[in-house]
């Protein structure tokens, strides 16, 4: 009797588990979808990030005199500085949108796991960042007659963006709740993502200069470790960021 009870209970809990997984994913997807729909209508986030990114490249062009030899050395650095600056712009905007007219409070009222909200925001931020990068890379290739569409480079842009956006989403959700707001985000974010940044520049330069994989792997590993550690920690502590 007790045995069969236990069996039923176990089966029920397993059933519940099977049910909760899709609910979680559906929550994440709902938040991503909301952000994409809002962006599709306003187009203010991606367009401002994109224009800003192109401007940064133009400023670099004249600041560093990107002739053929200089370009060979600094292209990866220029790219990552551009992504980092454009990224903070997008992260700030994306969180300011939530703070505006209490959208975030509405999200938090929903009876869902808070980490799903974080993942949803992080994924949509990642999506915006990747779109900007997907446009900047060919534009840069075109402007400087250099082929940046190398599979290795695309992989590192993807991996680097994951880490950057994860930490960025967490910190921007903190920064938006302070008095200084958007000014604070780069000050909080850049010292934390510095190791990721160093490694990403190194790996990108390695691929562009055709270095041996054995020289690239240590840096690539560093990026992967960074992504894993900070994704885990960000998901764990997000609850405390939005707690009231």
């Amino acid at each position, binding site marked *: 009797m007790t045995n069969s009870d236990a069996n039923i209970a176990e089966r029920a809990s397993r059933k519940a588990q099977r049910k909760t997984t899709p609910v979680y994913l559906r929550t994440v997807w709902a938040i991503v979808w909301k952000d994409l729909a809002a962006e599709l209508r306003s187009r203010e986030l991606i367009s401002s990030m994109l224009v800003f990114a192109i401007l940064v490249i133009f400023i670099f062009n004249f600041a560093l005199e990107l002739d053929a030899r200089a370009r060979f050395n600094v292209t990866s650095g220029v790219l990552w500085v551009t992504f980092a600056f454009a990224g903070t712009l997008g992260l700030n905007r994306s969180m300011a949108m939530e703070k505006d007219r209490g959208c975030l409070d509405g999200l938090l009222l929903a009876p869902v796991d808070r980490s799903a909200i974080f993942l949803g925001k992080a994924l949509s931020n990642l999506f915006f960042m990747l779109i900007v990068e997907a446009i900047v890379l060919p534009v840069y290739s075109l402007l400087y007659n250099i082929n940046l569409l190398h599979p290795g480079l695309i992989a590192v842009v993807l991996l680097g963006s994951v880490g950057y956006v994860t*930490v960025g989403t*967490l*910190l921007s959700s*903190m*920064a938006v*709740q*302070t*008095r*200084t*707001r958007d000014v*604070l985000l780069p*000050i*909080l974010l850049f*010292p*934390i*993502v*510095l*190791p*990721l940044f*160093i*490694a990403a520049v*190194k790996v990108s330069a390695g691929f562009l200069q055709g270095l041996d994989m054995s020289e690239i792997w*240590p*840096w690539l590993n*560093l990026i992967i*470790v*960074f992504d894993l*550690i*900070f994704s885990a*920690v960000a998901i764990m*502590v997000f609850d*405390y*960021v939005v*707690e009231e």
Partner: protein
Amino acid sequence: MEAKPRLLTILDGVTVVMLIIATGMVFFYAPVEAVMGLVQKVFYFHVAAGWVGMLSFLVAAGAGIAYLWKGNRKWDVVGMASVELGLVFAFINVVTGSIWARPIWNAWWTWDPRLTTATIMLLIYAAYLMLRSGIEDPDRRARFGAIYAILGFLSVPLTFLSARLFRGIHPVVIGSNQPGAEGQFDMTALMLQTFLFSLLTFTIIFIDLLWHRIRLGRLQDRIEQMKLELNL
């Protein structure tokens, strides 16, 4: 008003005496290094300050975890106190290092892993203080401070690792003998004793100041509460 604990007064005295002895040992007990001369004496307090800077970073991250876990205000006071002290000691570390580097490396600054890491640590501390100063609600200020202390503590070793994958010229006096380091030297027994005593002294200074700062933080909290009560 809580009175100053007896033990703290005693610790104050011990700290002062130890600092005087340590200074005396640096100048009169430890021999002058053969190649670098007098400027090498900066080493004793330089490393000790760096050690305390890192220790306070660790304490701040530990206090952050404890605060998020237990939600007790006292951990927030510990974290804040630790970051403030860490900022001071890390700054002493960087400045004394520069004083040493000018004659030895012929430059105030190089992009060595240790230098980079120490300075990033300073910047993270500074960002921590800016984050806190921008938040009115004490509860939220404590939570955000805790989170940022943890994130910073996780990021700093990775910064060190990535900067070391570049190249380094900073001497590693303790442990391995690294070829190519500029300003490398072997410690004699007297130097080692002086060095260890400096480490101990700075650790005691840290504990003493941390205690004072925590007490100050607690008193500040009390004043806030009293003001609130008066307003009611």
